[in-house]
């Protein structure tokens, strides 16, 4: 399958991995995997969670030792025994979780671990010179050598990390889900930077869940599934659908199911709501049996809107009515009033990672698991079992700590909490962030089932308010969509009146207004 420029070129590929295999216990993480990238080429590595992308990159960076396989850099055998060696050899990794020291300045972070010294004393002028040189590449006013890293936006922090990689003179740059927490502007900046790095002859391995991004930025794509390479192609020669089909090993048809929904009474109403900083003004009506989406850029105030609705952030002004309850309320009350929030940040806020699946699912309502306010673990487990089966949560049982589940399964646990509480209004903040396609499909199916309801089985339709940065998801799942831009929520429109292009214009503040 692999063909084209690299094999025909005279010079060896900048990076080549061949026959890499790795087992963890009885599990095959990688089986005979090979990739290569020429100088000035962007190779996209795609696959579901658990497909082996991260393990492969850990082998490349020396963090994990492969059982078999060989690697070359510019034709020279390359065998790193630890990440430091890999970095010295010119292989730099930019991970999803940034590895910066937030209390230090930009320049200190750039030279961290490689400070130029004389007799142990750091040469500050030299540090500064190197930092300025590295930052010139980016053309970003926020990035000054003395700025504290904690004060920077996530996008700028990522640039600092890339700057650090560049000052080490890297030849191969690995970007692991680089855009997952970036704003649209920062994404554009990053892509521009990637283009320039290509011109300098770096080989870039680009890992992403977003196929659209891969199509834009990469030259070639390698698709992994269950630790094996299942496809290699020039990006131009393969369609998005084909890539997804290879990733999941089956056709994803009906990714966004949509049953006939019956909108009922208004169950959540907000008028001119303002938080401490954001949102500045938001008005919205949500009915039973309806899925309403909120689009917009990261940082527009969508998360803050949900959080102030739920009592996690203060409300400065405006009216809220949830069912028969008026005014702002604490999370304790909101749960009692029949609303539940799914946090966008699973690890920091959404889940108590060291606690069990059962504890996480039942935490909001521990009543009813035994007499006299006693909580019987056996009953907790029984209730949890239902959701493990219904949502197909892959775990050893209700007592397994959530920390050992994969991202997709963790998200199912977080969702199961809302279902176990049986809330009427579901506030979902980026419900499919960072999870694999199969888990996404399940969540879309679930949202549809909840909004449709089943009166015959005594399950009334629920109301769903959903924030998402992923436009196909919004247009695919929602009945109505509103876009938030700089703290202001635009009017909601029926889904057949909008398309992704219009939504994006509105999100970037170029919309046609009302």
């Amino acid at each position: 399958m692999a063909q084209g420029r690299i094999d025909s070129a005279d010079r060896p590929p900048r990076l080549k991995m061949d026959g890499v295999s790795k087992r963890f216990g009885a599990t095959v993480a990688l089986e005979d995997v090979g990739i290569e990238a020429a100088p000035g080429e962007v190779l996209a590595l795609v696959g579901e969670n658990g497909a082996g992308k991260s393990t492969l990159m850990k082998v490349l960076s020396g963090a994990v030792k492969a059982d078999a396989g060989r690697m070359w850099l510019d034709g020279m055998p390359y065998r790193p025994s630890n990440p430091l060696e890999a970095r010295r050899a010119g292989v730099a990794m930019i991970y999803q979780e940034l590895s910066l020291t937030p209390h230090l300045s930009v320049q200190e972070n750039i030279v961290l671990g490689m400070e130029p010294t004389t007799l142990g004393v750091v040469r500050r002028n030299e540090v500064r010179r190197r930092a300025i040189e590295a930052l010139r590449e980016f053309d970003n006013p926020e990035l000054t050598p003395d700025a504290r890293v904690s004060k920077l936006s996530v996008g700028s922090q990522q640039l600092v990390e890339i700057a650090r990689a560049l000052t080490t003179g890297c030849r191969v740059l690995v970007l692991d889900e680089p855009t997952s927490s970036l704003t649209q502007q920062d994404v554009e900046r990053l892509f521009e930077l990637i283009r320039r790095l290509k011109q300098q002859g770096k080989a870039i391995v680009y890992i992403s869940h977003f196929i659209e991004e891969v199509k834009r930025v990469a030259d070639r794509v390698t698709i992994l599934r269950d630790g094996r390479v299942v496809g290699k192609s020039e990006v131009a020669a393969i369609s998005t659908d084909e890539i997804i089909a290879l990733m999941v090993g089956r056709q994803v048809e009906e990714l966004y199911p949509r049953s006939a929904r019956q909108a009922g009474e208004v169950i959540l109403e907000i008028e001119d709501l303002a938080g401490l900083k954001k949102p500045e003004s938001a008005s919205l009506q949500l009915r039973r049996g309806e899925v309403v989406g909120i689009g917009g850029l990261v940082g527009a105030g969508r998360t803050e809107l949900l959080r102030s609705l739920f009592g996690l952030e203060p409300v400065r002004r405006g009216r809220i009515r949830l069912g028969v309850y008026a005014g702002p309320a604490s999370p304790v009350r909101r749960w009692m009033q029949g609303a539940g929030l799914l946090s966008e940040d699973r690890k920091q806020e959404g889940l108590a990672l060291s606690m069990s699946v059962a504890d996480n699912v039942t935490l909001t309502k521990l009543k009813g698991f035994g007499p006299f306010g006693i909580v019987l673990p056996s009953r907790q487990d029984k209730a949890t079992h239902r959701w493990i089966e219904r949502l197909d949560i892959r775990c050893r049982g209700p007592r397994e700590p959530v920390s050992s589940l994969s991202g997709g399964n963790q998200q199912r646990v977080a969702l199961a909490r809302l279902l176990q509480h049986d809330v009427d209004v579901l506030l979902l903040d980026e419900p499919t962030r960072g999870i694999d396609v199969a888990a996404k499909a399940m969540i879309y199916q679930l949202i549809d089932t909840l909004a449709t309801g089943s009166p015959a089985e005594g399950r009334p339709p629920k109301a769903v308010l959903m924030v998402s940065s992923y436009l196909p998801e919004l247009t695919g799942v929602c009945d109505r969509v509103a876009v938030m831009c700089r703290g202001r929520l635009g009017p909601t429109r029926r889904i057949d009146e909008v398309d992704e292009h219009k939504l994006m214009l509105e999100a970037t503040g170029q919309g046609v207004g009302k």
Partner: protein
Amino acid sequence: MNHSRATLEQKDNFGSGWLRWLNTLGPVLALAAVYGLFALIAPASFRTTRNLEMIARQTTIVGVAALGMTLVIISGGIDLSVGSIVALSTVVIAWLLQYAGTGPITAALGGVAAAACFGFLSGMLITRLRVVPFIVTLGMMLVVRGTAKGIGQEQKIDVNPELLKWLEQLLASVPKEHRWMLLPPGVWLLVVLAVAMAALLRYTRVGRHTFAIGSNEQTARLCGVAVERVKLFVYTLCGAFAGLAGLMQFSRLTVGDPTVAIGLELDVIAAVVIGGGSLSGGEGSILGTLVGALIMTVIASGCTQMGLYNWVQEIITGAIIVLAVALDRLRHRRIA
């Protein structure tokens, strides 16, 4: 994130069956090992039932205080004022007996109540001022110690022996005619309270909420846990248990001594930590804590019986603390 499937299956090999039992019984086995070791090398007097009773009695003060500390540490906090509260409690009890003329029951309750008040105050400061528990209770350590000294006017409060009644008997060795009791009432009280606390942690809402707060406070808040109220409860309870430990201390000293139990909080924290409690919260158990407290007493007792110097004893205890926690981390890495 991407290798999660691999690690998940890998973990199936660990964590199940006898290894999981080993995990829960780990501290108990450690206790058995330490006891066995001394039984082998220490003189025969170490193996007598009399010495077992002695160990139980000596564990009680730290053990009672550690019950409350377990909850605090599970919630992700710490309480450094425990030692001072023990001293305060002895002083209050002595003062009530000697100067207020109350009976022993009122005096005992008074001591515990005063202690609970200071625990409550710590809880209020932590939840209202949003200052970290370490700092608040560090301050309270001095405040409470000062208060105790103020009440005693910088001196011990001696109590007329006739006023003591049963207070003296709490931790005294069981007399011959009451052999059926096996252990002094104070030790039994510790056992009963330990069972109650273990049940509270495992089977009640406030117990589960304590774990949730320690595991991830933000999640707890999101899930509608009344975080502030639970913390207030936990610190008040910790104060009350420290007060009770003060009652035990008073029973042994029979004077109100504002300078007693200096540094006791560190023994108490060590007991919780040896028993598997994590200072970052979310982990810990009552059984583990009691075992942790016992391990320290057994070492002390064994060393004394062998005629080792006090300084040797301290070095060994210190090494055990670090070793226990290191083993615990190692175990965690293998299982989680």
